[in-house]
């Protein structure tokens, strides 16, 4: 799949949505804070909203070209859309909702069998019910199935899990992963949730105030945010203000308060001095105080401030001259006997300290 979004411009209330991007791959997350224009972008792609200028091409098919007056009608685009409020038809049963857009005959190679979709999303017991009697998670699955049964070429999902609590979210995520793996429909997935992004997407587009801040593979964006705005939004746990004090080939030494950190810097502009040093909690290792440091250059004496559950992991707040967050497994926390006041050593490998010029 390739989706070309060229020269898209749409005035929104406080800013103008301006997008120029080529999207490849199975699941691409459009990541951004609320009000950054993510939903509007999906609506433009689906044809639900007219942009001032736009060129949209899905594979070899031009869907919209404002300059040349091309605008494929919504119903012919083959773009499935699951809006945030799901928009299930309240006067129809679950079965009738599912069958509303069902394709048959024409486009046969893209048609998914009804039974298979019902099975994968575990909708069978709901079929006869009215949609108003469904729970949030059930509605979510029905809306997804309804879009899939119309055999779209591209599926647009607008914060599909935003209204669900964490527990339910963890239960619905595997369904989405199954849909991704079984039906191989390319998806544009709007969210501002790190968990969903990491679980589902292979690439991501970061949208802030209507402009693209960064695009790339998910892992790369998470470990090398292009700007402070992106790092902030991805909730990189530790962001320190620092000054470069030494550059030794690949290795850059940064003074952050009283501490010196060594980073394997990535293509910093030549005369960068002031930087933000970003450290993700997953990349922080914790050792018992007095342990011999390994190959990691940054070993920092630290005091445990707090230990709290975060999903399947434990989040440990450390004080090592600055506040540093670490994510550890529960076993690790028990083995290290981590509790507030414990003295430990925090380790961060040089490649895991990412520098952003400020």
């Amino acid at each position, binding site marked *: 799949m390739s989706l070309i979004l060229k020269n898209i411009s749409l005035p929104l209330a406080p800013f103008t949505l301006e997008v120029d991007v080529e999207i490849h791959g199975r699941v691409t997350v459009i990541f951004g804070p609320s009000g950054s224009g993510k939903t509007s972008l999906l609506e433009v792609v*689906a044809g*639900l909203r007219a942009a001032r200028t736009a060129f949209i091409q899905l594979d070899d098919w031009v869907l919209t070209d404002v300059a040349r007056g091309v605008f494929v*009608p*919504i*119903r*012919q*685009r083959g*773009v*499935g*859309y699951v*809006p945030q*409020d799901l*928009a299930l*038809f*309240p*006067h129809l049963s679950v079965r009738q909702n599912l069958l*509303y*857009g069902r*394709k048959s005959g024409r486009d046969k190679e893209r048609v998914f069998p009804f039974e298979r979709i019902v099975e994968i999303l575990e909708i069978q017991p709901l079929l006869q019910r009215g949609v108003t009697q469904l729970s949030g998670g059930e509605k979510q699955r029905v809306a997804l199935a*309804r*879009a899939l049964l*119309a055999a779209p070429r591209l599926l647009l999902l607008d914060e599909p899990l935003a209204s669900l609590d964490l527990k339910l979210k963890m239960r619905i995520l595997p369904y989405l992963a199954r849909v991704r793996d079984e039906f191989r429909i390319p998806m544009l997935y709007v969210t501002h949730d790190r968990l969903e992004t990491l679980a589902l997407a292979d690439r991501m587009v970061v949208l802030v105030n209507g402009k693209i801040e960064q695009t790339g593979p998910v892992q790369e964006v998470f470990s090398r945010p292009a700007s402070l705005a992106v790092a902030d939004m991805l909730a990189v746990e530790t962001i320190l203000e620092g000054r470069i004090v030494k550059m030794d080939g690949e290795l850059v030494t940064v003074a952050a308060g009283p501490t010196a950190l060594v980073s394997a810097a990535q293509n910093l502009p030549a005369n960068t001095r002031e930087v933000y040093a970003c450290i993700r909690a997953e990349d922080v290792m914790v050792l018992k105080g007095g342990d011999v440091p390994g190959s990691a250059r940054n070993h920092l004496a630290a005091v445990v401030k707090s230990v709290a559950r975060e999903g399947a992991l434990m989040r440990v707040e450390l004080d090592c001259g600055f506040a540093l967050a670490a994510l550890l497994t529960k076993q690790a926390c028990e083995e290290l006997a981590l509790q507030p006041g414990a003295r430990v050593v925090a380790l961060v490998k040089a490649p895991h300290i990412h520098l952003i010029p400020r």
Partner: protein
Amino acid sequence: MTAAEWQIARFTVEMAVLSTALILPFGVALAWCLARLRWRGKALVETFVAFPLVLPPVVTGLILLKLLGRRGPIGHWLYSEFHFDIVFTWRAVALALAVMSFPLLVWTARSAIEEVNPALEQIARTLGAGEWRVFFTITLPLAKRGILAGTVLAFARALGEFGATIMVAGNIPGLTTTLSTGIYQLVQAGEDNQAWTLAGVSLALAFAAVWINVRLMRRSKR
């Protein structure tokens, strides 16, 4: 009730049913245009449609009379081309009732359609539905109760219409006399007892119409 009274009651109901059936498709179509489309001259059409509500019914009747009479622009053409008379026939009754009840239908149907979430219609389109399918499978079913309530209102209005009817259709016993014009005539003639019989029929019909309407409105709110 005498045969003549039955005739008047039946004729009035028939004319009300006919006029309501006549305006239903146009009224719903116009209501949809007003609710869902933006177009030039929309405000003008809105004003025009509302006119019979605010104009004295006799004035509406007078305008119709002048337009449709054999010397009027429309009536003249119809008569010379098809030898077709409207004024002072049952057709004039149906037409007067239609014109007078049209705004009630359009207004109620319009707000019923406006209450349908446009996002549902959009989603139907992304699922491959064309405009007709969207209207008949999404908009209409979801606005059904409101449109039905508007239809009942229009019907009730038609049952009681007086001013426009008497101007354009007159009051010809057995031909154009309705419950309202019939009652008026009876009272004028001092036949109060007969007038009360017809008034009783009106009361029963009005009660039924309003009662149905209230039931519909209550269900549509749920």
